[in-house]
């Protein structure tokens, strides 16, 4: 899983490592390949079988669950993974980069090998696993998108957690009052704007340190939503805190595709909005005049100012936009899943979103990919918890955080954010 992050060459400012660094990817792949061959393939007893379900009961075309001999499958998959690693090593020796598809395929096969081993003598549905992963990735992806909109303009957004929480709160309350989940969906970004406006006011206008403001705003959001929950929502749950949930919309045709159809196209509107948001933000940031300006402000505000871009106005705009996007993700926690709002229900997801933004290298597609990885890790943890596998689920829960630490430490490819992020811009 961690190998996916090696897809770029080492960071430009990383002078000491130089050309040899690109060998790091294949070496890590080889190490993981050998690990899976020994741990999942050679060491376990033979004779066990692993059962994967690959369709749901409501599919147009139904497939029977696949039953595989665990040991043999794990060995074969490990060998394929090792072959991919060897291919990557050959490419690097030839002076070229490891293609992204090799890394992606390696990651997928490695995870499948792990699953084959973990599910030995049991059965699990791949469709529900992937469906759940996507669902759990939704708030992370929205949060990461909101974060990168801020940081691309040079404002560090630690307050994603607070924006998710206020978004969740707003969606629940307005959804309950109006009885319409779509009104809640509109309210979520509007409520999160409060946190965004405070972030912009204190960081952009008053130049207070962005990290301090972010941390304090998270406390503020927890305090405010919990206070309102305890004093108003709890006693009037029927009127104020029982929103209808967003219904699942199956997209005709597309949702009938085997395996992927139900995963991608039988979801609520939040998931479809996520597809749209990723595409729009990716195009807007990298293909439009607006995006160029935003990135200029985030990298080198003095230069942007010199050519007539209003740095602080751009930052205000992006902080507000980013908080609205993150707030939309907050709607997932209430009307997108359980319905009612609960105290501190985001439970640190905002910080994982921050991590997804960093792992995704401040790009929308990257953020989505990282969010999906974290969502998958979370879902896998739930599934394995139910199946009573040998891995304690606390270690699965730790995984996103550890992967992020490895990533920022440059152990699996260096990540580098917008240069001016964290610095207030004072004209002059």
């Amino acid at each position, binding site marked *: 899983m961690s190998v996916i992050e090696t897809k770029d060459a080492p960071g430009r400012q990383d002078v000491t490592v130089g050309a040899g660094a690109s060998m790091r990817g294949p070496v890590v792949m080889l190490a993981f390949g050998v690990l899976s061959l020994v741990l999942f393939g050679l060491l376990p007893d033979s004779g066990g079988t692993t059962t994967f379900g690959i369709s749901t009961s409501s599919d147009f075309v139904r497939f029977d669950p696949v039953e595989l001999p665990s040991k043999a499958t794990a060995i074969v998959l490990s060998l394929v993974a090792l072959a991919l690693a060897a291919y990557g090593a050959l490419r690097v020796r030839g002076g070229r980069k490891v293609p992204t598809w090799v890394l992606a395929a390696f990651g997928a096969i490695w995870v499948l090998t792990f699953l084959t081993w973990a599910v030995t003598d049991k059965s699990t549905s791949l469709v529900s696993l992937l469906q759940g992963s996507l669902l759990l990735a939704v708030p992370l992806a929205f949060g990461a998108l909101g974060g990168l909109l801020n940081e691309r303009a040079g404002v560090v957004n*630690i307050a994603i957690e607070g924006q998710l929480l206020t978004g969740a709160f707003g969606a629940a309350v307005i959804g309950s009052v109006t009885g319409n989940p779509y009104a809640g969906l509109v309210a979520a970004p509007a409520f999160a704007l409060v946190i965004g406006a*405070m972030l912009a*006011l*204190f960081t952009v206008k*008053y*130049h*207070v*340190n962005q*990290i*301090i*403001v972010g*941390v*304090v*705003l*998270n*406390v*503020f959001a*927890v*305090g*405010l939503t*919990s*206070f*309102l*929950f*305890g*004093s*108003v929502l709890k006693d009037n749950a029927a009127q104020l805190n029982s929103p209808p949930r967003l219904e699942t919309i199956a997209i005709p045709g597309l949702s009938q595709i085997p395996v992927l159809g139900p995963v991608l196209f039988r979801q609520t509107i939040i998931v479809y909005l996520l597809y749209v948001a990723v595409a729009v933000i990716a195009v807007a940031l990298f293909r439009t005049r607006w995006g160029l300006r935003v990135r200029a402000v985030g990298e*080198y505000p*003095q230069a942007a100012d010199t050519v007539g871009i209003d740095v602080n106005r751009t930052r205000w705009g992006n902080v507000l936009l980013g908080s609205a996007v993150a707030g939309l993700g907050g709607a997932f926690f209430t009307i997108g899943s359980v319905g009612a709002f609960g*105290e501190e229900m985001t439970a*640190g997801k905002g*910080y994982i979103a*921050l*991590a997804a933004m*960093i792992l995704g290298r401040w790009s929308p597609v990257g953020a989505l990919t990282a969010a999906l990885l974290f969502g998958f890790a979370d879902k896998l943890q739930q599934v394995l918890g139910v199946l009573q596998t040998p891995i*304690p689920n*606390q*270690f699965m*829960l*730790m995984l996103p*955080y*550890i992967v*992020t*630490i490895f990533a*920022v*430490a*440059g*152990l699996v490819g*260096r990540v580098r954010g917008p*240069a*001016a992020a*964290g*610095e*207030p811009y*004072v004209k*002059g």
Partner: protein
Amino acid sequence: MSAAKPAPPSGATDPAPGPERPAGSKSGNGDRAAQVLREVSTGTFGVTFLAFVLALVIGGLLIIAVDDDVADAASYLFARPADFFTAAWSAVSEAYAALFRGAVFNYEASTVSGAIKPLTETMTAATPLIIAALGVAVGFRAGLFNIGAQGQVIMGATIAGFVGFTWNLPVGIHLLVALLGGVIAGGLWAGIAGLLKARTGAHEVIVTIMLNYVALYLLQFLLTTDAFSTGNQPKSPSVKSTAQLPLLLGDGFRLNAGFLLAILSAVFVWWLMSRSTIGFRFRAVGSNAHAARTAGMSVTATFVLVMIVSGALAGLAGATQVLGTEKFLTDGIAGSLGFDAITVALLGRSRPLGIFLAGLLYGGLNVGGRVMEVSTGTPIDIVLVIQSLVVLFIAAPPLVRAIFHLPAPRTGASKEVAA
């Protein structure tokens, strides 16, 4: 007048900021952060006071907004406006009075011990806050953001607790070893972030945030193992009496020797930062890493050391929590201590005495908030709102001055020009 004028242009013509920015963005970040931290910590007393007033007023408005009696009176506001204001006043004054009774002095209590118990509870709650905030402040003054006090408190509490309920050692030594275990655990946990920053440039904010969660899940895992748990509950055995911090005021009160450790820690941090060579190095790196490097100091080694000291204090805070107040480990042992410590450090302006007072204040708000919740039904979470607003307002003196229509001080204006 004319003598004062020439000063700003000499700063304005200085070409240094322009060309320097693109070359050394990493260290430029650190300098800027340190500068902002200095600004946060040099506000005036007046701004602090007004920030409190503002936060309490906003808190009061929130209490009024959700109060049932006020809502009833508001429905006939124009018929009898006095009712509305009476209801609003009683809602706020009752809540804040309960807060005071719970935090400082219970004037409704029938016994002396009952009357002063709230104050001792405040001191008990303030103990870990003060110690952890001192750790955060050491980082701030060296230009490092240790957002990971939470994780370091957890690790400190975990190891101190483990030593406390597993090992058998003589009285006195057992307590010392357990405390030391907490200090070392917290220091090493934060040292990871320091080492990664020194070696790879990984930003300490991200690493410490991530380590908070790793620490939490590690503790949750440990509580499922036989070494840490009792039966099926995710709860450890009680710390043995030889490892418990002695009570200061007898069995009736929870106040323990941890409070003395908090005082000692404050004195230690004062000595470290203001009187020792190491502290001078910390502050030099914090105010200008370039200059410190030029002066022959190892900036990277300082990063590691700062984080270790910072984490060690947070670890000690965790140790006092488990050995003095809670006596056993759960996954909620740290509460929100680590995050509260950040706000306490900011409120105390990173100075030991300021942190001591801010810690008492926050401890009081937390303890009093519970009494307020029980007696008036106002959720304790209002305390979080007040606490966060105070810190925000203190960090932005121009905003506070603008709200109260105060003139900007002359020194502040010239500083803004210089920046």
